[in-house]
């Protein structure tokens, strides 16, 4: 690369670190929210099932950019609070990713046959013990590999946080582009950084998938 851009290497790495961090935070939050909605979707109470379906279908159908605008401008106006771009982006990403996680976690729980529930309860285990010691250890094998895909989606979608002014990798690139005037080179560097991060993580995902493969 030309010297003009190499001077900004520190900023690029910092931007990349922020991208990795906010995506990770959003992934963890969406795992929690997603698990709640997965449990609701498997509930025996129909209002909970309807609620879970409505939540998943709504946030799977609304673009992340729309959610970002809504969280940054809309929520601030409605609740008369000042949301920072960081908080707004985290909420928007969590709303979007949790709808993916709900589907994944639900499939994981359903992959464990009903008979094991009954067997667990029959041996005198409590409900939470069946969850903790029988269902989850098996479900996690089904949940983890696609969760890596969700993390990659988070890393890519967090680039849109740049539009509401959050300085992550993409915004860093745009700022460097403004101060150096080097359009193409800067964007290629940003693209390369995203590629290296996401491709490495996708390799981890592929390894996990292989490791957890259930042989019938």
């Amino acid at each position, binding site marked *: 690369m030309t010297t003009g851009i190499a001077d900004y290497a520190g900023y690029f790495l910092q931007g990349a670190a922020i991208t990795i961090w906010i995506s990770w935070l959003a992934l963890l939050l969406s795992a929690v929210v997603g698990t709640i909605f997965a449990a609701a979707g498997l509930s025996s109470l129909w209002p909970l099932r309807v609620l879970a379906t409505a939540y998943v279908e709504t946030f799977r159908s609304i673009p992340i950019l729309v959610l970002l605008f809504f969280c940054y401008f809309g929520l601030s106006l409605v609740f008369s609070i000042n949301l920072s771009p960081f908080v707004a982006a985290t909420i928007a990403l969590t709303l979007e990713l949790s709808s993916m996680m709900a589907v994944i976690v639900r499939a994981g729980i359903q992959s464990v046959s009903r008979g094991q529930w009954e067997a667990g309860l029959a041996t005198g285990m409590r409900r939470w013990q069946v969850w903790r010691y029988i269902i989850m250890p098996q479900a996690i094998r089904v949940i983890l590999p696609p969760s890596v895909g969700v993390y990659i989606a988070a890393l890519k979608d967090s680039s849109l946080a740049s539009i509401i002014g959050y300085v992550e990798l993409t915004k860093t690139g745009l700022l460097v582009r403004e101060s150096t005037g080097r359009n193409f080179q800067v964007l290629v560097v940003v693209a390369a950084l995203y*590629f290296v991060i996401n*491709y490495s993580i996708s390799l981890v995902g592929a390894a996990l998938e292989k490791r957890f493969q259930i042989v019938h």
Partner: protein
Amino acid sequence: MYHFSFREIAPYLVQLPDAIWTTISLSVLTAILSGFLGIPGALARRSRWLLVRFIVGLYVEVMRNVPLLIVLYLVFFSLPQTGLRLDGFESALIALTLNSSAYMIEIFRSGLIAIPRVQYEAAASQGMTRLQTLRLVVLPQVLRVVYGPIGNQLVGIVLGSSLASVVTVAEITSWMDTAGSATFRYFETFIVAGAAYLAICQIINLARILTGRLLFGRHAAASR
């Protein structure tokens, strides 16, 4: 307490049908272009030449791992430097197609993998030509595997088309932002824009399920 009111955004609703139409036409064009690129791309990923496999594989991995926004910026800001004049809609169409064809290639590839080698041999032994084999043996089975993922990809294209608002295309997201910033009624414009996206995506989902039922009967795979 926030007073919910649609009255203030009412004057902006007249622009909404045009915005919805722009989202739909951008998405449909992207779907058609990337669908057509996906089939030869998938065949190229199974080419007998290593170089062809490598180049297409690299293309797919790059597009799947680089955010659409960066691809869009590259098209919108960098292509004009080569002398090519593109408006926002064309840039968005190119970026979305570049991105979506990578997914389409993978979808069609997964469809091709599902067909065992022996079926090609069996078809050849029946005296079928290559084209006949593709049309009568391969394609019907590939369709069965790919229609579900293609439905999901169409939803992905509609969601991705929202990025066109960044390069001045007046589609649904851009409408929401314009009407919201003019009236400070972001919550109300969000509900309208969200409902529009929800409706479009659910229609696609419904079409996907119906396609499965009609073509492959009740036991069609309910892929998500």
